[in-house]
């Protein structure tokens, strides 16, 4: 059974400079894309959503915001200042992306945003995950994926490098006063309780973090009917990237709708 990897210190992820940059970039992308129905996949405690939706214009722009997560975080979302102002438009559903058929009843979304989710899904299920994301967005709608795509080496070879970079960033955040030493401890953990140190060990052992390259994820996206429209590497941490896809109607579907069914398709 999948389980949520949320832990208390996760709220502080935004203090890491690279994560902060990922959010700022996504905010720009989100503001530039058309649409009024947004699906946030893997919303966690809502810190990222709070940042992405912090402009006053969001109240007008979004008619419907749906957030899903493995953990029940409905109470957490309401505690955020901006999210609480969107209460009448915001709904939360506790579910696993891989079993998110429940979303069907919500109709198609204009934009799907999915942050730091795919790397935790096993390779055998990543294709399904991508298909679920694609199925949730309308034709012409967009999917924003923010995640870890190691630039050097494959799979978990570089898990150590990925997490070491996060840990250095956490130390930098302490040095510049973005977090306190207590918060640093919450973020890192002690190696036994949840935190970056334990995640690092698990990733090295191969029990979590099933990294793929951007090439692989773009391949999965294409086969799910999504075209890549932009790929931005994070300057602060080159292992992170934001990819934006657009959902295309398949040629088979277009042919079928223009001329009736094609034999064998």
């Amino acid at each position, binding site marked *: 059974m999948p389980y949520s990897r949320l832990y208390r210190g996760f709220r502080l992820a935004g203090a890491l400079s690279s994560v902060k940059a990922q959010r700022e970039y996504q905010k720009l992308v989100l503001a530039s894309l058309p649409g009024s129905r947004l699906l946030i996949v893997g919303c966690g405690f809502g810190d990222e959503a709070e940042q992405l939706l912090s402009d006053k214009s969001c109240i007008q722009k979004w008619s419907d915001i749906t957030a899903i997560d493995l953990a029940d975080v409905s109470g957490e979302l309401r505690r955020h200042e901006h999210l609480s102002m969107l209460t009448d438009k915001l709904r939360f559903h506790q579910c696993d992306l891989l079993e998110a058929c429940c979303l069907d009843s919500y109709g198609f979304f204009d934009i799907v945003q999915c942050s730091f989710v795919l790397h935790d899904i096993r390779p055998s299920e990543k294709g399904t995950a991508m298909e679920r994301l694609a199925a949730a967005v309308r034709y012409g709608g967009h999917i924003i994926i923010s995640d870890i795509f190691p630039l050097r080496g494959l799979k978990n070879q570089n898990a150590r490098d990925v997490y070491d970079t996060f840990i250095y960033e956490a130390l930098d955040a302490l040095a510049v006063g973005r977090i306190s030493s207590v918060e640093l401890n919450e973020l890192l953990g002690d190696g036994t309780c949840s935190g970056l140190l334990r995640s690092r060990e698990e990733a090295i052992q191969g029990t979590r973090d099933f990294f793929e390259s951007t090439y692989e994820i773009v391949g999965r996206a*294409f086969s799910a009917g999504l075209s890549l429209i932009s790929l931005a590497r994070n300057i602060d941490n080159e292992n992170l990237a934001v990819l934006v896809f657009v959902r*295309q109607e398949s040629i088979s579907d277009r042919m079928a709708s223009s001329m009736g069914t094609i034999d064998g398709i």
Partner: protein
Amino acid sequence: MCGEMSSPPTSFEWRTGDLAIAHALWDKQFGKGGSLDTQILEASKLKKYEQYRGFLFAIVPLYITSICVESCLYCNFRAGNRGVKLQRVRLRPLQLADEVQYLIEKKGLRVIELVYATDPLVRVDRMCKDVERVQRLLAKSGGGAVGINAEALDVDEYRRLKDAGLDFIVLWQETYDRDQYIKYHPGTTKKACFEYRLEAYDRMFVAGIRTIGMGILSGLSDWRLDWALLMDHEAYISETYGIGPCILGVPRLKGAAGALVRETPWVPNRQEFKCAVALHNLFAPSVLPFLSTREDWELCSEMASGGGALFTLNCSTIPGGYAARAQGYQFPTDNFDAPLYAPRLIRQGLLPVFDWKFSKGEAVIAERRLASGTGAQE
């Protein structure tokens, strides 16, 4: 003359530049020889014919050097190859002139692609001199065009080549899979740097070169994704610079004797390859696929349906392979001798032209010598 073109079997419209076209690569019926393939191939033939009326543009590769510091695992020219099916040759200027004279006078070929391995003694100075020299020889015989196929270069180097009279430039990205690219191209040369190669096309445009060729070596990684990303890359280039590539490189991995990688699980079969080229024709009908003699005659002529392709007839992939009859190769090829094979194309409803040039990014037939089957002087 070209055969009668039948109407397309459907009312479905393939929209030029529509990236959704790339998704057909993943259709379960794609490349299986069924109705989807038939529709793609027929629509491609029709689109090509509408624009090019069956004309094919003859081009010949002329290898200048096979001395190479690169270690590309799939290439016979790789630095570590100690002579398996290979002579290391660097053409001297006079030898280059002999080869060019031979191709112009004996074979009637007037569009010449100069091909350079990464030779430490053949840098951009020499390339510029070669371009100027070939242009002079072509001018004496009534004109033609010269392009290069070499390692990725800096903006200033591209600018110098343009000033030297370069008409076009082709560069194949090989694969868009960065991890595989790094595996296939070990070392510390510029070619070993994925990003440097990927950004070379931008540098060409910054340098003012407007006639460029892009392509991949099908088979180095997931061929479907490489083709899709190539289309994506072309769309980016068109959007950024207001003009897309004019030439499409369509090499398919072929095992070379001295290569360390001779086959992979990712090489598209004939049907898949033919359909991928046709699908690209629907995405970008004006772009000319560069059909090389890596493929056999039947496949080359099928892929040329409707016209609008660069067509290699005489082909040697070793410096001095024409007039000097040097032996060896970069990769195994056929050689379709122009005077013999051009009439075969005509019988197949295609019109090979030897005397043409690029103008504003398009292939233009020289008015004075419209194709008569062969441009060779008998």
